């Protein structure tokens, strides 16, 4: 059992541990989000990305399991902002902050969606997804620093909760987007979303996913995500949630050393279940103890010395 205090403060949120449930992972149900928020080791939970209108996402197949990760092409299924408020009503006994992820095809839609979901009392913070690689409209936003800046400043004007921006690794402009978001008033950055990917069935000669392209996540993504966090930490001053391929506690440490103040877990939930939060919290705690640190904060960005 862990004996060390793993709490972190990030962008105005106080988390019991730096471990966050990533967006799109089991995050459609208020009841389930609440249950996960109470699991040992969980610092915060993020909802599925919510848009203004309901979306079915793509027909199946929407996922491919590889020996080194997943490719998903869910296509942002979600019940839409209004319906999601009811979902949140069911999120009883949340015991960690809930971050509401959202998206829009235009700045106006982004602002409108933020307005709706931000007012729910169970929403502690928002995360703007401008990086889903299999939904066009949302994907391209992540390559446009000016548009992201515009969206961020407009959203910040109408909400009084912390705002994260979830970044795309599919561009050489990731640091520019991060900087633009920070300058426009974002409180934190989540790096990264999936990398655009494809798989073909060699028996049927066709792409496997019905959406053709998907996003690569899981272990394969880790070295890329880590590089993004490291690059952003060098240039941008707001806190970073590291995300991509975390599967054990040393991965968590790597992200924090690279500059992340917290770390989000996605695909690993498929491989290890929700119990992974506890496993990683314990591992992180023993790491810190073994190396003589007293808090997570002490090692944030330490690899940049």
């Amino acid at each position, binding site marked *: 059992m862990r004996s060390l205090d793993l709490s972190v403060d990030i962008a105005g949120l106080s988390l019991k541990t730096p471990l966050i449930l990533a967006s799109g992972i*089991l995050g459609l149900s208020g009841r389930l989000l609440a249950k996960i928020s109470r699991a040992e080791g969980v610092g915060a939970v993020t909802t599925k990305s919510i848009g203004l209108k309901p979306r079915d996402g793509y027909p199946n197949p929407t996922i491919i399991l590889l020996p080194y990760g997943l490719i998903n092409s869910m296509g942002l299924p979600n019940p839409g902002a209004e319906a999601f408020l009811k979902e949140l009503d069911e999120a009883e006994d949340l015991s960690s902050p809930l971050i509401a992820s959202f998206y829009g095809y235009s700045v106006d839609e982004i602002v409108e969606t933020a307005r709706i979901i931000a007012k729910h009392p169970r929403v502690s913070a928002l995360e703007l997804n401008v990086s889903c690689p299999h939904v066009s409209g949302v994907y391209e936003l992540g390559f446009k620093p000016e548009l992201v800046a515009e969206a961020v400043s407009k959203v910040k004007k109408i909400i009084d909760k912390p705002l994260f921006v979830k970044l795309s690794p599919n561009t050489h402009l990731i640091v520019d987007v991060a900087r633009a978001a920070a300058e426009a008033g974002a409180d934190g950055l989540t790096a990264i979303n999936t990398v655009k990917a494809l798989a073909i069935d060699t028996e049927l000669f066709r792409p496997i996913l019905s959406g053709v392209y998907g996003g690569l996540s899981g272990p394969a993504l880790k070295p890329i995500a880590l590089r993004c966090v490291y690059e952003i930490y060098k240039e941008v001053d707001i806190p970073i949630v590291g995300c991509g391929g975390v599967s*054990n506690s040393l991965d968590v440490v790597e992200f924090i050393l690279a500059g992340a103040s917290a770390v989000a877990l996605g695909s690993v939930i498929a491989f290890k279940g929700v119990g992974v939060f506890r496993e990683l919290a314990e591992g992180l705690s023993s790491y810190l103890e073994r190396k003589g640190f007293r808090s997570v904060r002490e090692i944030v960005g330490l690899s940049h010395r």
Partner: protein
Amino acid sequence: MSVYHIDRSMLDRHRRRIVRIVRRVDECLDTVSLYMHNPFSSDPIPGQFTMIWIPGVDEIPLSISYMDSCILGVTVRGVGEATRILCSLQPGDTIGVRGPLGRGFTIVKGRSLVVGGGVGVAPLRYLIYRLIDVGVDTYVVFGFRDKLHTIYLEEMEKLSVEGRIKLCIATEDGSYGFKATAYDIASRILDESFDMVYVCGPEELIRRILVLCVEKDLPMEASIEGYMKCGMGVCGSCVRGAYLVCRDGPVFDRDKLLEIGEIGLRRRRASGTIEPLL
């Protein structure tokens, strides 16, 4: 440097294997059983399901309705695009299969009651063969709309004649067997002598049997549905209550069914939108 580990058996279960249909059997008006070479490397448990990929159309969950060492069978009712196309397939046609997925039924020695309604009998058929194999005293109650919608009738009658199961078929309009619902029959024979009650079918049936089993304090397991996408417990699409049908189910025991609560009352669409039932 990280050591990571994606379970080999998980990789294996989620590999889409392209297989050929070797046999089709028209079960009734709108329901077909499809048989293919066994693509699994492990023996499935009754109640586990497969994801069947109809290339260019969809990939949908179907229960395992038949399994021997060489052959896997599913039984599908045509209710929409994917299932209708499946129902039209012929021997030689190819589909993709992954599985076996999810948690199946628990086999309990003694006396068991198997209650099925409509195409919900699919997983129960495979279960019944297993129960017989291990010597469970098996009572089967199947309910259908009418004679034209009955499934596995001959097969079950044969098992009954051979004395391997006790069988009771009901149709709502009385065109075959008892004029009753599966619930009517089941509720009449259910007593403390049963060691396990297995249910699959319309959620209304499951909900009512659940109430009964709670009243009588009988152990019960039911296979329920959720909107399946990933089938591996990551996307959250199949959530019912605070459980994942693909990972924690599709078979749930009495207490979990109670905890889920919403059975027969509401479910989710592809978008996650909640849709009231009834």
